[in-house]
Every structure is written in structure tokens, then in C-alpha cells.
């Protein structure tokens, strides 16, 4: 395999079994297993998805709601295990799938920086070294000792983004996160992403905004109901996407 490929997704399919009626109590379970009445309906959120992301590349994933984007990102970050197919990832992944993943609302911003760092696999010592950078980038210096349950969603986003990018991941997954926060901060994030790319990181970006994807990404795929309907150069992709859905 080409050494430049940092993420290799091969024929990935994800099946969800939806129990026709969800069984969550023991009594129900016993009665139904005795009657052999547990039935499932299959739902394939992804079918045979394949693509590769190279080093230093900004890779866009486009698709309407329900196309399977989030499922795909969860598989990439290791949260879900695919039903079929394989994903190989070379390097550290920092997922920005949902803001404040792993934040504890009762704790202060300061404590959450360490906690969040640890969920990404970084020790206290390593986080100490990055602490100032995170605080400065997030512009939350005055609120460091406030429990983050009192934070606004914009503040959450800033803190989450600052932590995830400070650990200099080789692969950053960004899911709609950039749409939170004001214009200034969005600019700042985009600059940060470009800077990371220049340093050899790869970014996988999911966005509804065609403009954002077009201006940032170089290649990508379009997902529709779990299938890759088009892949390749971003301009072609965006035109295709625009025509197909408008």
C-alpha cells in the first residue's frame, strides 16, 4: 500500500438491526424468546464504501441528512465497528464529531481540558505543555474556573476545537463543528486547519456548506443512502452535488 495513504477504507458496510419493537426489560425478553418472537429489520447505513485519504489532504464528505456521514465518521474514529470491510488508520485521530465529546458539565473548563485530553489518549503532563496554547486559542481565559454547564454552545465549540487541534493529530475529523461559533472564530479555525495541513496533517471534513467544502477541500466523496455515488476532485463533486439536489 502507498505509504502516503493515512486512512484506507475498504468495502465498509454497516448494518443496524432494529428490533421491530425494542425489548429492554427482562420480562419482555423472556416472554418473547419463549415465543420466538424477536424479529429484526435490517438497515444498512453504509454499503461497500471505499476511499483513501492521503497525507496532507483535506478530504470532504458530502451528503444529505441520513446519507450515512455520521456513521462513517464514527467508524473512522473507532466508536463503531463495521459489519463488513476494513478501515486502516495510520496516525493519531482526533475526532471533532460532536462538540464537547467527553466534557463533564459539572467540572470547570480547566479540569475538562485535562479530562478531554485524556479521552484522546494524552496524559496530564502532555496536556500541561499544551495548556496555554489551548487557553489562548479558545479565548476563554476569564472562564477557566467556571463549570462548563454554564457555557454557551459557542464556548463549548471553541474549547472543543482548541483541545482537539492542540494535540497535533495526524488526522482530524471535523463534523459540522465549524458552523458553530461566530464568523471570526470560523475564520480562525479555517486558518488553523490550513496550518495543520501545511504541517502534514490530514483532515476529513463533513459539512452542509458546499462553499466551505469547495474552498477548503481538494478531494472527497458524495454519499447517498449509504452508497458512494461520486468520488474525486472537489469541484466536480460540488457541481454534481449541487445539480443533483437542487
Amino acid at each position, binding site marked *: 500500500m502507498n505509504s502516503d495513504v493515512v486512512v484506507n477504507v475498504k468495502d465498509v458496510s454497516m448494518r*443496524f*438491526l432494529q428490533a421491530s419493537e425494542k425489548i*429492554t*426489560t*427482562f*420480562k419482555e*425478553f423472556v416472554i418473547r424468546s419463549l415465543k420466538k418472537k424477536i424479529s429484526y429489520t435490517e438497515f444498512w447505513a453504509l454499503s461497500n464504501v471505499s476511499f483513501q485519504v492521503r497525507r496532507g489532504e483535506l478530504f470532504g464528505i458530502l451528503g444529505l441528512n441520513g446519507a450515512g456521514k455520521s456513521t462513517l465518521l*464514527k467508524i473512522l*474514529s*473507532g*466508536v*463503531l*465497528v463495521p459489519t463488513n470491510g476494513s478501515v486502516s*488508520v*495510520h*496516525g*493519531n*485521530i482526533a*475526532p471533532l*464529531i*460532536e462538540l464537547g*465529546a*467527553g466534557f*463533564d458539565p*459539572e*467540572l470547570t473548563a480547566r*479540569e475538562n481540558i*485535562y*479530562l478531554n485530553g*485524556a*479521552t*484522546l*489518549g*494524552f*496524559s*496530564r503532563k502532555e496536556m500541561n505543555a499544551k495548556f496555554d496554547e489551548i487557553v489562548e486559542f479558545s479565548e476563554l481565559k476569564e472562564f477557566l474556573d467556571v463549570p462548563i454547564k454554564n457555557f454557551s454552545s459557542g464556548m463549548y465549540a471553541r474549547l472543543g476545537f482548541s483541545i482537539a487541534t492542540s494535540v497535533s493529530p495526524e488526522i482530524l475529523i471535523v463534523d459540522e463543528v465549524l458552523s458553530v461559533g461566530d464568523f471570526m472564530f470560523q475564520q480562525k479555525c479555517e486558518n488553523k486547519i490550513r496550518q495543520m495541513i501545511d504541517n502534514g496533517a490530514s483532515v476529513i471534513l463533513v459539512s452542509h456548506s458546499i462553499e466551505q467544502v469547495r474552498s477548503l477541500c481538494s478531494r472527497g466523496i458524495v454519499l447517498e443512502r449509504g452508497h458512494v455515488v461520486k468520488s474525486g476532485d472537489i469541484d466536480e463533486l460540488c457541481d454534481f452535488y449541487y445539480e443533483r439536489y437542487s
Partner: protein
Amino acid sequence: MKKNDGIIDLWKYRDLLWQLVAKDVKVKYKRSFIGVLWSLLNPLLTMLILTIVFKELFRFNIENFAAYVISGQVIFSFFSESTSLAMTSIYTSGQIMKKVYVPKAIFPISKILYALVNTLYSIIAVVIVCLLTGVPITASFFSSLLTIVYVMIFSIGVGLILCSIAVFLRDLEHIYGVLLTAWMYATPVIYPAEIMPDRFLFVLYCNPLYFFVTHFREGLLYHQLPSIELNLYCLMYALITLVIGVYVFNKRRNQFILYI
């Protein structure tokens, strides 16, 4: 980076483990006046009630009854607290698990370590009671610390099994509560093991906690080292349970995310 979700990953994420434990301890004592002292006071007060009820009302005749009760009770509550928390740990940590990859076993294990911290405070209470009631603390006390290790391994095993099932069947939470009550009476916490009628002796021998409690009291109350046989029983129960726990958990863990 390989994500094998096993022991290696657990070691890699050890810092998260400590932080989860520290977080739980911090949150527990937040907004309470005397904070950590509660871990000391709780077993003391329960012991006081049990001692009054059973010594004065039921006229149990056990030497050093107060120390007898509190030593059994601390071991049993370590087990019951840690396993109950571990049982619910998977779905109470759903928010993290749904968004980032972390080795899943970290959640039940962090709850057990948290209960361990509380237990270590409670042991101070045990020592205080021993000294106040004229039971000297001797070098054999160290063997009682070994008991804690046995109970911890056993609890990790039980906790892994419970949380693997509870994700799919939440009823377990209620069933286990009742089961724990029965289990406590099947363990000589309050009563002396000798009053168990012969035909019920098997209840004690099938009960790992009987061995743990006995092991704990040998060094603490009777100032002798637990026999090798007793140690082997404890070790065997702890390890077998751990192996079963790891097996069940590994079989189920990939499906957790679909049910939380």
C-alpha cells in the same frame, strides 16, 4: 494506530482512568461540608446501629462485636458499591462512548477503583473502632490489605459481567439490588459463621464473600495469618471470576454502542 480495545489500550489510556476516578471522588464530595470525612462516618454510623440492634436487642455473643461487624461490613460494601456502580457504568458513560473511541472496560474499572478509594477511607474507620474497643492492631493487619486486593479482582470480574448484561437488560439493576440484600445475609457480616446450620453450610462455601470476610478478619481481629488454604480459595474465586468477566465483556463490548 491499532485500536484493539484490550489490555494494551487500557494501559495507554491509564491517565483517563485516573482522571475518571478523581472526577468521581471530586463530584461526590462537592458541596458537602465535611467532604471526605463521610467515607469515614458512614461505616461508623451503620456499625453503631447494627451493634446496638444485634448486641443489645438480640444478645449476640461475639467477642468485640463492634469490630466484628464493621470489618465484615466494610468488605461487603466495597463489593456491593463497586459492582453496582460498575453495572450501570456503561450506559451512564454513553455520552463519551458515543463520540470518541476509548477502551470500554475503562468505565467499569474506574468505578471499582472509585469504590476502592472510599473503602480505603473506611478502613481508617475500622482501625479506629478496633483501637477504641481494645483490639490491638498488629503486623498481621497487612494480610487484611491483601483481602482488599482479592475483593477488587473479584469485583472487577463481577462488574464486567454485570455491565455487559445490564446494557441490554436494564432490569438487572433492580434484580441485583434484591440479590445483594440476600447475598449480605448469606455472608457472615452481622452473625457469626458458627450459627449457620449444617444443612446450610454449602451456602457459605459457595459464597466467595464468606472467604474474603473470613480472610479479612483473621489478620485484623484474631492476629494470625490466614492459612494457605484460605488464601487459595480467595485467589481461585477472584481469578476465575475475572476470567469469566473478561470473556463475557469482550464478547459483548462491540454491541454496547448500539444499545446506549
